[in-house]
Structures are given as C-alpha cells and as structure tokens.
C-alpha cells in the first residue's frame, strides 16, 4: 500500500508540474499571435461608422473591459486567480458571454460525437486487426490495403467525401447542423431521430479513419505476439486456439490502450475537422472561432480543457496499465 501511495504521489507531483507549465503556455501562446483582438472586435462594429472619434471611443471601451492594455504578467495572475474561482473569463468575440458558458454549451455535443466514435473505431479496429492477424489469407489481403487506405485519408478529405456522396449526391443524410433545420430541441422521437440522422456522417467520418489506424497497429502487434515463444509453447502444450488468442489479444492490446487513452484526451482537437465541415456544434468549432477572432480567453479555455483531458487520460492510463500489465507495475514500483 505504501508503494502505491508513493507511486501516485510522485505521479501527481509531475502531473502538477506539467499542468502549471501547460497553463502558462495556454495563456501565453495565444497572446503571441500577431494582431490585436480589440481591433478585431472594433472592426466588426466600426464598419459604417464615419466618425473617427466614435471608433476610438469604442476601442478604448473594449481595451478597458478586456484589460488588454495591462502588462501581460498582471493579466496572467488575474487569469489564474479567476481560474481558482472557477471563472475562465469573459469571451472577447462573444462578449459578454462567459467562456465557461460557451464551453458548457459546446462540450456535450463534442462528447456525444467523439466518445462513441472513438470507442467504436477503437473496438472495430482492434477486432478487425486481431482477426486479420489470426485468420490471414484472403481476409488479411483485403483488409490490409483497405485499412491502410482509410487510415491515410486526411480527416477533412473523408468528411468532404462522405458529405458529397451521402448528402449532396444521394441526399440520404442531412447537410449540416446537429439537428433538423426546421426543429427546436425537445424530448420527442422526431427530435431524437433528427439528432441521430445528423449524427451519422460526422460519426462515421471519425470511425472509419480510426478503424484504419487501430487495425494496422493491432494487426502488427498480434502477428508479433503470435510468433512469440510463449504462443509456440502453448501450442506445443496443446492449449486450445481460443485460449491462445486470448493471451495474444491481452498482450497485443497494451499499446492500443495507450492509443485509446490519448485519443480520448485529444478528442477536442480531433473534433475540429468533422465539426467544421458538417457545421456540427461543439468544442472544435468553438476553438476554431476563438482562434479566428483572436479571442484569448476562449482559446485559453478550450486548450485548458484539452490539457486537463490529456493529463487525466494519461494519469488514468498509468494506473490502468499497472492493473492490466503486472510487468509495468513491477517496473514502476522499483
């Protein structure tokens, strides 16, 4: 037990350090972009205003509201101070909305889209990869090139292809949005059906690509494991194939679990392409808008979410690893 405590303590310490470093970068990097966010906001309102004094008054007003004229170090401490109070600040581009409110309304869509898609892609990919390694012959010959192909298609290419085929040419799926253009959200079968219909293309555009990557990895790992000495030994002992596949799967899974944890952690960034192409709501679109409008608090807010998710995923992974692979635990406790 003491060993566990020390192990977790050490881990937590390093995650803490990483978190502080990430926080600093989250805050600083957006502010190093060339350009001036206040003038971006003013540009939206000043078009059509003919009085230079009026434009200046608007500029000064926002510079004061956003505190962008203060020294960066002072802004950083205000930011961190507010974070401790659970306040991620006020968005520049969607002023006066709170960043937490914007992220809150977007995060459900991203989780709803990404979580099932990543898990589904991971599951299908691993099963197909293991099967390809085990069955070989025709199955592998067909599957391998296909998975290679799909895993190398860029995410936007896949999304656009699906959009053109299913929405524009065949007209079997909706073009854009998270639910019907003629609906208002409510608890009814019609609405749920509409959400599910709009869900299909973004969902499959993510699944198909991740199947490819996962299957390739799983196949190689399984082939490697199938040729391992312990498998030969098990066969020699006359252990049933089913049982051996179980051993192989468990060993080949290890790197795949890392992959899963990392894709769960980075899902917000990964959501960007699918969300933008399908005009699907979510954190990816939010972050994209934040970057376009130089909305520092919003960029910092979304990247903070990514940072926390990656850190949590890696932390959980470290713990889970210990359980599924005693060798890792042993090594870590040394």
């Amino acid at each position, binding site marked *: 037990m003491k060993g566990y405590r020390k192990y977790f303590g050490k881990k937590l310490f390093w995650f803490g350090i990483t978190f502080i470093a990430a926080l600093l970068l989250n805050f600083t990097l957006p502010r190093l972009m*060339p350009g001036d966010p206040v003038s971006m906001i003013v540009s939206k309102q000043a078009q059509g205003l003919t009085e230079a*004094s009026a434009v200046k008054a608007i500029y000064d007003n926002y510079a004061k509201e956003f505190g962008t004229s203060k020294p960066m170090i002072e802004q950083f401490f205000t930011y961190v101070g507010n974070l401790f109070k659970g306040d991620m600040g006020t968005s520049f581009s*969607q002023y006066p909305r709170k960043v937490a409110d914007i992220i809150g*309304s977007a995060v459900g869509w991203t989780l709803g889209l990404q979580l099932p898609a990543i898990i589904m892609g991971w*599951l299908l990919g691993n099963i197909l990869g293991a099967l390809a390694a085990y069955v070989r012959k025709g199955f592998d010959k067909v599957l391998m090139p296909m998975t290679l192909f799909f895993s190398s298609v860029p995410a936007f290419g896949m999304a656009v292809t699906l959009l053109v085929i299913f929405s524009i040419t065949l007209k079997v799926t909706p073009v854009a949005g998270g639910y019907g253009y003629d609906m*208002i959200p409510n608890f009814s079968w019609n609405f749920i059906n509409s959400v599910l219909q709009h869900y299909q293309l973004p969902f499959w555009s993510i699944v198909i690509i991740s199947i490819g990557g996962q299957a390739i990895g799983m196949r190689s790992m399984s082939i490697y494991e199938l040729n391992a000495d312990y498998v030969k030994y098990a066969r020699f002992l006359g252990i049933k194939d089913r049982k051996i596949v179980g051993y192989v799967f468990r060993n080949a899974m290890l790197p795949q679990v890392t992959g899963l944890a990392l894709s769960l952690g980075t899902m917000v960034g990964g959501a960007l392409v699918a969300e933008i192409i399908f005009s699907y709501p979510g954190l990816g679109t939010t972050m994209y808008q934040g970057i376009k409008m130089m909305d520092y608090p919003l960029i910092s807010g979304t990247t903070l979410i990514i940072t926390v998710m990656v850190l949590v995923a890696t932390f959980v992974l470290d713990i889970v690893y210990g359980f599924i692979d005693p060798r890792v635990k042993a090594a870590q406790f040394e």
Partner: protein
Amino acid sequence: MQKTRKLLSMLLAIALLCSLFIVPASAETVELPRNETLYFAGIQWGSVNGWNPLSDDMNNGMAITQNAGGSRSIMFETLYMYNMLDGSLTPLLADGDYVWNDARTEITVKIKPAAKWSDGTAITAEDVAYTFATSVKIGNARGNSYKPFIETVEAVDDSTVLIKAKLNDEGAAVNPLQMITYLEEAYVFQKAWVEAVEARSGDDPAAVKRDLGEDVVWSGPYTKYYADDQKVVFVRDDAYWGQDASMWGTLPVPKYIVHTIYADNPAGETALKAGEVDVCQQFIANIQDLWLKDGLPISTYMDEAPWGICVNMPTAYYNLDKPVLQNAALRKAIALAVDYDAIIQNAMTGQSPSFADVPRSLMNPTAGEQATFDHEAVKDLQWAGDDAASAIAMLDAAGIVDTDGDGWRDIDGEKISLNACCPNGWTDWMAAMEIVAAAGEKIGIEITTEFPEWSVYQTVVTAATQDQYDIFMMWTDSAAPTQPWGRVRQLMSSEFVGVEGNWSGNWGHFSNARADEIIAAIPSETDEAALKALYTEAVQIYLTEVPSFSLMYRPNMFHAVNESVWTNFPDASDGRNIPPAICVDGYGIAALYELELVNP
C-alpha cells in the same frame, strides 16, 4: 475477457446516452411548419450573445443591425425606412415626412398615433429622446457616432420629436446630411425598459452594455422565440401595431423567421441549393449556373448580369506614406494597366458592371449617384483598364524608366518594387490582387502579392502610419442618404490621416486641400447646380491624383432567393420599388408583407 466485454459495452451505451442528454430546454412549438417559416443564411455567424440593443456586441445580426443603408427592423424599429432604389425615406414609427426649419438646424418628426410597444403602451417622443440621450451617455457605437452632429433630441410633446443639430462657428448645422442618416438608422427603444436596465446596472455604462436584455421590449413585427448554437428563431407578434391601416394594414406573411448558423459560406450555399434556405445573403460564384445549368428554383433581384444592384466599390489603395508612391504618374499608370474585366469575370464571376458600362468616378452605378456629377467634364480622365500602352507612355513621359537594364523601372536609381495585399482567404479580393500584380509586370513594375491573415491585416491597414503594404484593398461605403458625399469623404478626406485605429476611410493617407474644402462644403450645399459642380470637381481630383482605384462594383447585400416554398420576392422589374435588401433591411422589409406560398 467476459468482464472486459461487459465494461466496454456499458461504456458504449453510456456514450450513446450522453449524446441524447445534450438537448437544451424545450419551447412550445417543436417543429417549424415549412410553409410558415422563412429561412435565412449569411447574416448570423456564431451564436447570439443576447438581446440588448443598447449594446454594440450582441452578435445578433437578424435582430440588431443599425445600418445607414437600411436598418434591420424585424424586432426593433427606426423612425424611417431607407430605400436605396430612389433614396427615399418611408415613415415607419414616424408619421409623415420630417420637416426642416428654415435655417436647416432642426428637424421635426411626428410619431404615428398607432405605434405601440410589445407591452401595449404607446411609443412616444420621449422614448425617441431618451434612446438618443442614453446612447450618448453610455457611449455606445450609435451614441458616439451621432454625437458630433446632433446636439439633442427632444420631446416637444408626446408625439413630436425635435432633433437639434450641432452648430458650427457660423451657426449652421455641422452636417445636415448625417442628421438624415440618424432618422433611418437609429432604433427607438422604450424609455421604461432602458430605465429598468440602467437601474439594475447601477447606472454603470459598461454594465448597461453588458446586460443581456432578455426582457427587452420591442416594437417590430417579430420577436425572439428560440436561440442556441445552431439557430435563432423569431416568431411573429400577432399583436404588432403595424397591422394598423396607418402602416402596413396587415401582418407580415411568414409566422417564423429562422436563421440557421452555418460554419461557413459553402455550408450556407449547400443549404440554399437544398431548399433549406429561402433568402441567402452570401456571395455565390457563378450564381446564374444555379438556375441556368442546375435548373434550381433560385433567382436574384435582376434577371440579367450583374444579377444584383451594385452599390459598393472594393478599392485598391496606394500607401502614400511611401515616398515612391507619392508619384501620381506611377499611381495612374498602374491603375491604367489593370485588367478590370478579368477581375470582374474572375473575382466577381460577372456579378458587377464593367468600367466600360459604368465609367469610374467616386459614385456607385445607381442612377441617383451617377446623376450627381457632370460626365462630360470627367470623360477624359476616366479609364476602363487593360491599357498597358498608355501606361508605359505615361511612365516614360514621367521619366520612370529602366535605368539599369534589369527589366524593371526605377525611380531615383532604385528599382520600384511593390507588394499588393489583401486578407488571406478573401478569395475574390485575392484574385483581384493577382491581376493587379500581373498588370505591374506588363509595364515593368515589380508587384508581388502578399496575403496576411485578417487579424494582422486590419491592424496594419487601420494604423496611423504604416510601411508594410504598398497597394492594399479595402471597401467603400454603400448606398445611404449621405452618399455619394460619404464615399467622397471616405476616399479622399485628410481628416483620417494619422488617426490611430482608423476604420473610417482614406487608408492610403491622401491629402489634398481642395478636396477637403469640397468635402466640407457639400453637406450644407442645397443649390443643385453648385452641388453638381462640387461633386464633378471632386471626381476630377480623384481621377487625376489617383490616391486609390476601384477594382469592381459590388452589392451591399447579396440577395439570392430559393422559390421552392415562398415566392413573390422583390424583383427589379416588378414595379413595386422594393429594394433587394434581403426582405428585412430598411424599406426592403415591405417584401415580408407580400410573400406568397408556392403551394398554399
């Protein structure tokens, strides 16, 4: 193995359930009947922030847009509605025409007796006065913008508004033209509601502007119904005062107005083609192909090219902070060599009249603006472009020649090397800049294109001085009651030189004393002939000095409609005089009262 499988299937089930729990609060009507709903695209980008029209930043394009070319009046209303077709002002909250006093320092406006707020109370002159006073007090965009030329807005009695001009040293109104803009641009808000906002904000101007205005009182025919990250829905107010015989005599036809929030232009265009959008305010390349080739029931305001009414003139500015560009012959020679027809065909896909059809001046192609100057007097100064021979002759005559034999012309022994810039991703502008660069090559002047991001571009262009961009693009004013004076000022007034954060105009920092005198004289000039002489002289200066040159004509609003559900949209040839203002701006809103269903 069994356990893992169970765990994974549970995880999957939870994840799928998650996707169902993202449903926001429900509203009464959950499906919008297609034949009662008018769908828009190209106005609302990103989700609505709030409903407070005193704020500058509600990102609520459909409800809150005050614009000199015609304010959007589905929820909030102005005194008058502007019609860019004939420059007329039609009374909305106002009763009859506005009246100037003899000295042209005061305007009197009557309020319609029938005009009511959504809570049933009468709209009074006091509301108009309080709206103006509050806007100035809290320093919002409108307040700051009217302050330089309106002294006060007073309520003489419940139904009479008196607008007093700010006076100059001679006792004349500083700018009578801009006072007219106030009449058709400024919304009127309910005094009682504004006072309530002030009270809960502790009279703090910033807090007043931050208020989300969820309880806002309106006077227009529609009100907020539902808004989220994907759409904003308005519902008709069936108690709308405007159904009184003294105004429209009826309610607008669509019960709901919906704007779906698309990620970008292509998404909106796809939805228009699919019939999910009825009115689309987006530039669509080769729009005529939608009906000529694809056979879709889509149309625009005009049956022939340029398909719309062009009132804006995207313009290439010379950076006059650069010594080399202070040479007028060089500026004019580059402008002469540019192939504008290629720009119009490539960048605008033909959706602009050519400079042979509408020779260049400071005026847009509308008949009203074209009539303001003497065409004969400026004829010799105009050019239609793609004239490398004249440009080369002009450069040679000015002594701008290749002295070192490297193929490029020099000034004072130095090669002229310029960049041509516009924001990255603005594809029509980028195409135009490429054609400008190509013109340089034809006449021996090195011009290279650069496309910085908008966030950087706008900071550089609006700076007090800059040495980064040599030739760069910006827009001009569209149609408004102050035009073409506003555009003359925007393109030539030296009042904008050296102003930090300059969004008003003259981005190339041109200075000309006579031009400034003309710009100062026009707003107070009432004699038609004298006015024409002033405008003509302004055009002569502009075409001689060439501080900038327009590259194309362009509509202020694109106005493509899909007639698969709704029809009887305004059309240039229907004689109704309803402008192509997307059925919601200025007098363009008259279209909403005349729409018909394709299948009733």
